[in-house]
């Protein structure tokens, strides 16, 4: 275990977190070397898809840090970070990867010690989670499929639109002025995440060649019924279509 050195990536916002990391340096506060930092202007720039991408590519863990709520240099940027991170957590939960492989923290420009502690903690957290199952050359196929599906879902229109509209929907309301409660929204979100995740799983599978609903159901451990309903959605989106019919069973393939 101790021989395992986690490869982690940290997204730091320019104004507070990155400055806090610099302060740790100026104050010579020592911390583990495991994290590689990517500077963004605002933590709100970080998309769930970006994080999932890194996990897919074999990162053992990814941390996102921004200004404390209320301190955001861009006034409300980190509020968006929060919402996007919530989606990221939902999707990661679907993939079967350990939830502790990602972490969101706020760190101010005055918190050098705290930043060092965060890196220490996070490194230990990942160390105990163990190496990612997705590391090449022998990644866990099922989990790899899941993380790809999750990434595709995160980058897809539906989930991005939902997260983007969350604030407006639960505060001022939509263009027709009808508001939804946070709970209603959460329900809608859960539902959407599940659908998008499954749809993309199926879509990815079909990209490797035509399959019947039954086969897919077997491979994904789902009810054929459910698969079929997703298939309908996939066809509506024009992502898949019936390739051929073998003994009456239609085989579907990605367009």
């Amino acid at each position: 275990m101790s021989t395992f050195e986690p490869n982690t990536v940290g997204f730091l916002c320019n104004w507070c977190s990155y400055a806090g990391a610099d302060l740790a340096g100026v104050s010579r506060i020592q911390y583990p070397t495991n994290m590689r930092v990517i500077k963004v202007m605002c933590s709100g720039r970080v998309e769930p898809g970006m994080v999932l991408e890194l996990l897919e590519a074999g990162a053992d863990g990814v941390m996102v840090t921004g200004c404390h709520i209320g301190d955001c240099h861009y006034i409300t940027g980190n509020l968006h970070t929060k919402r996007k991170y919530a989606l990221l957590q939902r999707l990661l939960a679907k993939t079967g990867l350990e939830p502790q492989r990602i972490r969101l923290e706020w760190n101010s420009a005055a918190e050098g010690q705290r930043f060092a502690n965060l890196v220490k903690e996070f490194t230990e957290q990942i160390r105990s989670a163990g190496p990612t199952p997705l590391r090449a050359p022998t990644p866990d196929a099922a989990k790899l499929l899941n993380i790809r599906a999750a990434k595709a879902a995160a980058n897809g229109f539906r989930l991005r639109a939902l997260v983007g509209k969350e604030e407006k929907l639960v505060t001022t309301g939509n263009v027709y002025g009808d508001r939804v409660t946070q709970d209603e929204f959460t329900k809608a979100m859960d539902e959407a995440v599940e659908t998008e995740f499954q749809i993309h799983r199926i879509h990815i599978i079909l990209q490797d060649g035509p399959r019947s609903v039954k086969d897919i159901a077997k491979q994904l451990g789902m009810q054929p019924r459910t698969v079929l309903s997703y298939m309908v959605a996939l066809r509506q989106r024009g992502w898949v279509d019936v390739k051929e019919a073998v003994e009456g069973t239609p085989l579907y393939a990605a367009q």
Partner: protein
Amino acid sequence: MTTPRIGVFVCRCGINIAAYVDVPKVVEYAKTLPGVAYAEENMYTCSSDGLNKIKEAIKRHSLERVVVASCTPRTHEPLFQATCEEAGVNKYLFEMANIRDQCSWVHMKEPERATEKAEDLIRMAVAKAALLEPGEEPEIDVNPSTLVIGGGVAGMRAALSLANQGFTVTIVEKEPSLGGKLRSFDSLFPHKQKASGIIEPLIQSVTTHPRISVFTESSVKSVHGFIGNFDIGIDTKKGPESLNVGTIIVAVGAEILKPKGLYLYGEDPRVITQSELELMLRAGGVDSKRIVMIQCAGSRNEERPYCSRICCNEAVKNAITLIESGSEAYIIYRDLQTYGIHYSKLEQEAKRRGVKFLKYQAERPPTVSACPQSLRVSLYSPTVNEEIDLEADLIVLSTPLIPISDAKELSQMLKVPLESNGFFMEAHVKLRPIDFATDGIFVCGTAHSPKDVGESIAQALGAASRASIPMAKRRVRTAAITSQVDQTKCSGCGTCIDVCPYNAIRKNEKGLAETIAAVCKGCGVCGATCPEKAITMHHFTDEQIQAQGLAALEED
């Protein structure tokens, strides 16, 4: 496309980096990275000698991208960028790897791993550099003229200062005459100057100033555009007018609460507000023997949870005036807001002259009852721990300033926010008290929050200074770190407009989103949010971030 020629400069920073990171090894490693055409080390890259070496290398090795691995970009990026520009490389083709503050200084005990990390950081920087694009810093012309909404003391003072600085100013005032709330004041605390002594000369110089035009009995009906170039529609008594200005100052002031039903106000003529007392004093005084003033009448409560700042001082000032004219004055208060030097003195003077102060508790406010020949105020005084009854001939309620009735309408027109109490909300409570988050629009006076005349004037002058900045330069220039909407992908859903805190994105005539580059602050939230992924965040593109991340994970 062929990867551009990249130059890498690794700084030893004396021993700050070199003592913990094997710099020569790192340089050798850098040379092996894709696209790196040249790499060298410097003792101090930020020294003039170091900077010259960068410029020479750019020329000698015809470098198209520059990576410096040294300290933090937060302090040194501008210096290196300037150097690149001098050597003909656009500043946005420069990238830094922070191998001191975030590497050598924090891994002093693990030189090998620090060296590895430095190599990784440089690999990441190089990967990003390969994808960097030159940036043109957007500039827009600024019309050197200002619209001041509101012709009270704040608006007039702001207008006058800007006009004196050489800018043209238009004041739009609802009322038939300039002067605002101050018209209804008798004298002003702390020094009891006559209010008229302040406004009349001000009105004089404003109305006679060659660069100021005034529209009274007029109101702003429409606002379009952005900093430097706002199109304004006004309704004047002579019909609609339109003008174009570079900046806008909101100085609409506030209104004074008339507390219907509170302490018999509106039911008994002997219960009046502080501002009504001002009018009486202006008209020559009152003949009541005993006057009782009640503070926080309608403020610091559930409905209006704010302190109106000026009421205590106004009450104390008026109480002194009344005592001078032989009346007896009581002030019933919760917390006396006589802050700072002048108001502390005013409070002491009042106590010396025999104004009587009685504290009451929010939980147990006083009650007022009418008797045929006088009024009775009953209150519980915690100080003496008793119920006290006071006979009064006149009761004066110190009521708060409240937002103007059409604040909401105006805020929507200007696309600037109001805070929970309905006053205009500045960009940052501490460090940007006069700016709105939206460039080119500023606030001053009681439109922002209750404040006294001196404070309003200070803020007005401040607004004049803030507004003068873009106008003095005639143009606004911002970093090229801005977002850009791909018109072919945009579906016009407007999500980006919702999330942008600076109103930097607008819908164009095609109903599609469009970034106003000069107003964009480059946070990238819109890019991260756009459902269609139609927005490119320059200098922090998806591809650049992805490249950095994947480079971080490369095994070597």
